[in-house]
């Protein structure tokens, strides 16, 4: 049973660009949805497992975009290398901010606010840092199809990169969940003192979660920059973090497949609403989106993932 589900699902994802008729616009939208889903999946490490309500996704996303884009434009460095370096830069920033935060025991709302503040600080720093970014958009040179440089006109190219990243993230998260890292992080989330008494270096493991998350999120930023062909400090967007955290909460905090599933569904709904309502009443699609989010949080506080799980359980028992 399990095999068929995975195989058909995998086949579907692989063939999706063809199913969409290789239409660049639809593939572009699908890629965007997958890209944000990757962030939701990466958030599983810091939010789901380690229980830190991080809202700083925009910081790492933007950093990845700027580093990748900057290297592509000014040093003609392949985007692939840019992705890695962007990820490392994000890890560096995450460490600089994360280490003292965990050292001084920031938690809950304070951690969330600090991470949100980080996004805005980085945005403004890059706005003022005109050598690298500044207020003007920087454009990545056009290439018809250059996989080595990681730039192509056809959108399916980015679709498969994103799909690859999604699979890697999924694999990493799954391994973490089953293994020592996941167990340690959950124990820290549940009861930090007890975890410490069992010999777990809580700060270190929280940092590991934060760094993993920041790396993957930065990679999404790099892919995004190459796909849209420019970068700008506006990519340090506080909204990405808020969206990621709410989707993860609606999907079921700490649940494994609930959040990504919710992400794909909700973001598809959001895009659908945008295409159909965005023209008539601008912003209405966002309100509906917000209403769906808040209803889900209020009435299924445990999240959609656990709810579906209990439903499946019921059906099986029958």
């Amino acid at each position, binding site marked *: 049973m399990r095999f068929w589900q995975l195989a058909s699902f995998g086949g579907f994802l692989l063939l999706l660009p063809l199913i969409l008729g290789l239409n660049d616009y639809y593939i572009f939208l699908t890629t965007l949805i997958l890209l944000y889903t990757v962030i939701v999946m990466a958030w599983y490490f810091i939010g789901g497992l380690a229980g830190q309500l991080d809202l700083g996704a925009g910081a790492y996303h933007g950093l990845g975009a700027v580093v990748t884009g900057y290297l592509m434009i000014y040093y003609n460095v392949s985007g692939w290398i840019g992705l890695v370096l962007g990820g490392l830069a994000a890890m560096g920033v995450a460490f600089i901010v994360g280490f003292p935060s965990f050292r001084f025991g920031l938690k809950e709302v304070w951690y969330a606010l600090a991470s949100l503040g980080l996004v805005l600080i980085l945005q403004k720093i890059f706005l*003022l840092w005109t050598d690298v970014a500044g207020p003007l958009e920087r454009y990545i040179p056009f290439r018809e199809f250059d996989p080595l440089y990681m730039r192509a006109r056809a959108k399916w190219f980015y679709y498969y990169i994103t799909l690859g990243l999604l699979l890697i993230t999924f694999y990493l998260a799954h391994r973490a969940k089953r293994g020592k890292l996941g167990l340690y992080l959950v124990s820290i989330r549940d009861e930090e003192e007890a975890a410490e008494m069992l010999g777990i270096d809580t700060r270190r493991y929280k940092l590991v979660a934060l760094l993993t998350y920041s790396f993957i999120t930065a990679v999404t930023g790099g892919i995004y920059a190459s796909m849209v062909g420019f970068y700008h400090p506006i990519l340090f967007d506080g909204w990405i973090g808020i969206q990621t955290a709410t989707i993860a909460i609606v999907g079921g905090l700490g649940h494994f497949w609930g959040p990504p599933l919710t992400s794909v569904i909700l973001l598809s709904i959001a895009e659908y609403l945008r295409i159909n309502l965005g023209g008539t009443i601008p912003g209405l699609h966002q309100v509906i989106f917000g209403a769906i989010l808040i209803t889900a*949080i209020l009435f299924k506080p445990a999240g959609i993932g656990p709810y579906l799980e209990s439903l499946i359980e019921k059906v099986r028992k029958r």
Partner: protein
Amino acid sequence: MDLLIDFAISLARNVVLGIMMGSVYALAAMGLALLFGVANLINFAHGEYVMLAMYMAYFFSVTLVIDPVVSSIINIPLFFLIGLVTYFLFFKRVINAPPLSQIAVTVGVVVLLRNIALVIWQAEPKAPPFTIFSASYEMGPITIPLDKLFATIISITSLILLYLFLERSKFGTAMRAAADDVDAVSMMGIDTGRLFLLTLGISMMLVGLSGSLIMMYQAVTPTSGLLFGLLSWAIVALAGLGSIRGIYLAAVIFGLADALASGMWDPRGREIILYGLFILILWLKPRGLWGRR
């Protein structure tokens, strides 16, 4: 020498501006501190309520052709009502829930409010076209804009009134006691549900008033909430929970940081200073400067 004098004048101007801006921030932050301190409720959407209050001030000012500061007469009771409505819609379910659930629900409120504002008022900044106070008072080289001065006076007056309420009235005393120990208060025979409701109401009234005051000299966008939310939390983090005086001083410190950063350095860099300061406070002074908890 001339340079030095210029610098001193510019510094003095910005200090005056900063104190006035901080005084208005204090109102917004006080609303948050009350709710967080008394009801122990983490309202992540606090800034969004300030944003909403600013829009309502704009709305009343434009439709009724009144000065934005007069709109506070409508805004204060309106926001008391909005407070009650949100209590029953959202907060009642999470008032005793763990912090994470409270954050989750109020983040949902952020999404909702921000986008409702986007639908109704669009994304471009809105500011009322007139205020009677669009003039300034020259005090030597220092210009004091009357709109901000007036906002400062109202703000300080309301804080004093709030202080008297907390010190003298029965409910005020109960609120202060609840900030220390909720269980003790409920044993004193005070209905904590009603106490929380009242706290939320007062918190929202402060928000409504601050929205009207800010609208006298600022424009509002659907994302303004982020700034005022973070700023309010930052002030509470710096002051700690406990005294109105502490909140006021912390707010003035942030107002000064704001004015000095945008006036003496670069208006685009103010967020770096404000939020940088916030994060540093969280690291180094987790209990705040004058906090009791």
